[in-house]
C-alpha cells in the first residue's frame, strides 16, 4: 500500500509538469507580440524592447518554458498585468472562498447522489426509481448557469428567503452550492444505482439472502459497501467538473472566488492571472485525484486480488 502511494505520487509529477507545459504552450497561442500587449497601447519602441529584455521574451521558447517552470516551483506565478501584484497573492485571497463553495457542493453531490441512487436501486423499475432517475436525467441536462438563475429567481426574488448574491453568511452558500453540486449529484445517483443493481446480482448477495438476513441489512451492509467502491472514482472525476463549474456559479452569484477571478482576468486580458488561476485549479484537481486513487485502492484491494 505504501509502495502504491509512493508510486502514485511519483506518477503525478510528470502530469504536473505536463500541465505547466500545456498552460505555458496555450499562452504562446496569443496572437501578436506579448511585449506589445504588456506595454499597452502607444508605448514606445524602447519600452517594448525593455519589457522584452526584462521578461526574457527574446530567449528561445524552451528556455522561456524552463524559466517559467522553475518560477512555478518557486511559487512565483508572475504578476498581474492590471495591478502588478503577484498572481499567487491574489489566488491565495480567493482560494478559501472557492474551497468553501466546492466543499459544500461536493457534500451535496455525494450525499444527495448516493442517497438518490440507493433509493432507486432498492426498488428498481418502481415509480420511485423512475421518478428519481428522471430527476437525475434532468440534473445532467440542465445548464448550471440557467439552473442557478432560476433558483435565484424563485428563492431570492419571488420567495425572498435567500440572499440574491454575495458571500457573507452560510445562507449565501445554499443556492450556489446546490447549483454547483446538482449536476454531480445526478451523475453519482445514476452511477450508484447501476452499481447497486450490478452488486445485487452477485452470488454473495444470494448467500446473504439464504442466511435469512433482512432486506435492509442485505442492502446496507452487504450490497452498499461493494457498490460504493466504483462510485468513489466517479466522485473524484466529478470534483474536476465541479472545480470547472465554479467559474460559472461564482459569476452568477457574484462570489469573489478563484473561478470568477479567472473569468474577470480573461475579460481584462490579464494573461498571467488566467495562467496562474488555471494552473492552480488544475494542481488542486491532480492532488484530489491522487487522494481518490489511494482511497479507491484501499477499498478495492481485496476485490482486485480475487
Amino acid at each position: 500500500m505504501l509502495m502504491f502511494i509512493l508510486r502514485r505520487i511519483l506518477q503525478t509529477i510528470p502530469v504536473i509538469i505536463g500541465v505547466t507545459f500545456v498552460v505555458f504552450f496555450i499562452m504562446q497561442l496569443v496572437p501578436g507580440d506579448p511585449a506589445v500587449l504588456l506595454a499597452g497601447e502607444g508605448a514606445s519602441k524602447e519600452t517594448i524592447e525593455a519589457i522584452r529584455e526584462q521578461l526574457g521574451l527574446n530567449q528561445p521558447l524552451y528556455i522561456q518554458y524552463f524559466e517559467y517552470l522553475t518560477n512555478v516551483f518557486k511559487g512565483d506565478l508572475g504578476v498581474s498585468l492590471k495591478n502588478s501584484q503577484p498572481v499567487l497573492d491574489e489566488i491565495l485571497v480567493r482560494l478559501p472562498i472557492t474551497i468553501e463553495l466546492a466543499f459544500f457542493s461536493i457534500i451535496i453531490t455525494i450525499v444527495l447522489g448516493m442517497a438518490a441512487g440507493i433509493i432507486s436501486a432498492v426498488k428498481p423499475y418502481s415509480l420511485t426509481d423512475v421518478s428519481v432517475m428522471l430527476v437525475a436525467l434532468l440534473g445532467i441536462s440542465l445548464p448550471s448557469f440557467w439552473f442557478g438563475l432560476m433558483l435565484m429567481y424563485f428563492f431570492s426574488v419571488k420567495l425572498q428567503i435567500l440572499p440574491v448574491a454575495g458571500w457573507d453568511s452560510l445562507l449565501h452558500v445554499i443556492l450556489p452550492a446546490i447549483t454547483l453540486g446538482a449536476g454531480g449529484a445526478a451523475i453519482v445517483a445514476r452511477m450508484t444505482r447501476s452499481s447497486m443493481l450490478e452488486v445485487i446480482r452477485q452470488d454473495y448477495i444470494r448467500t446473504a439472502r439464504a442466511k435469512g438476513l433482512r432486506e435492509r441489512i442485505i442492502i446496507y451492509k452487504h450490497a452498499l459497501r461493494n457498490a460504493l467502491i466504483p462510485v468513489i472514482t466517479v466522485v473524484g472525476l466529478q470534483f474536476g467538473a465541479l472545480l470547472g463549474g465554479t467559474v460559472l456559479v461564482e459569476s452568477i452569484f457574484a462570489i469573489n472566488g478563484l473561478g470568477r477571478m479567472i473569468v474577470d482576468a480573461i475579460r481584462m486580458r490579464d494573461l498571467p492571472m488566467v495562467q496562474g488561476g488555471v494552473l492552480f485549479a488544475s494542481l488542486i484537481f491532480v492532488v484530489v485525484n491522487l487522494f481518490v486513487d489511494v482511497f479507491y485502492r484501499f477499498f478495492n484491494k481485496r476485490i482486485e486480488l480475487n
Partner: protein
Amino acid sequence: MTVQVKTEQPDIAVKTLIGGTKESRIKDFISTLIQNKAALAGAIIIIVYLLMAAFAPLLAPYSPYEIDLENKLTPPSADHWMGTDDKGRDILSRILYGSRLSMGVGFAAVLFGAFFGIIFGLVAGFYGKWVDTIIMRMMDVMLAFPGILLALAIIAALGPSLINVTIAVGAFSVPLFARIVRGSTLEVKRLEYIDAIRSLGASDFVIIFKHIFPNILSPIIVQGTLRLATAILSAAGLSFLGLGAQPPSPEWGTMLSSGRDFLFSAPYIALFPGLAISILVLGFNIFGDGLRDAFDPRMKK
C-alpha cells in the same frame, strides 16, 4: 457473433458489431432502438430541433435582430409567444435562429474533438508500446484540467469568439474520445481475423481504417452523442460568460446572459433560452443512453 468491448469508462460498455450482414445488423439495431421508448423520445427531440434550425427563417415570426423599443420587455403574449427582450426583439424568433448557432457549435466541437481523438486513440491502441505511452500520457495531462478550465485557458489565449469556443470545447473532448477509441481498438486488435488480414499483407493503414475503425464505431457514436450534450452545455456556458458569441447574437448562452440583468423584472428573457438548451441536452442524453443500451448486449434479455 458479437464481441463485447469494454472501454475504460465504467458507464460505457458497448459491443462492436462483427459478423452478420450489414442490413441485418442495422435492422436489429434500429428495432432495439425503437423498442427503447426513451431513446425514441430523445431522437424525436433532436429531430424537432434540427428542423427548427433548418427552417428558422420560415418559422420565425419576426427578425431575430430587429429592435423595437416600443415593445421592449413585454411578457409572453399572443403576439410574442415568449415575450420580447430589453430591445424589443422577439425571443421566440431569436431562439429559433439561435438553435443554428448553439447546435452548430456543439456539432462542430464534437466533430473536431472526435476527429483528433479517434486518430490518437487508433494510433495509440494499434501501435501500443511507446507510441501508446506518449499519446495517452498527453491525454492524461489534458484530463488533468478540471472541467471547462482547459477550454477557458484556450479562449483566454485566442480571444473570445464563437469559433474559438468551438476549438476550445472540441479540444476538451479529444482525450475522452482517444481513451474510448484506444480501449476498443485494443479489443478488436486481439481478434484473430485481424491477424489473418495482416498475414495477407494488408498495410497498417488499411487494417486501421478498413478493418478496425468500422468495428469500433458503436462506442464512438455513443460517446459522440453524449459528448454533444456536454459540448452544447459548455459552449453555451462560455457564451454566457461573455467568452463566446457576442451580443446581439441570438446564441442561447448569450441571450441568457443578457436576460440575467432583467431577472427581477422580466424573468422570461432568461427562462426560454435556458429551457431551449435544457430540452435539447436532455434529448441528446436520453438518446445517448438509449444508443448505449441498444449496443450493449448486457441490457438485452
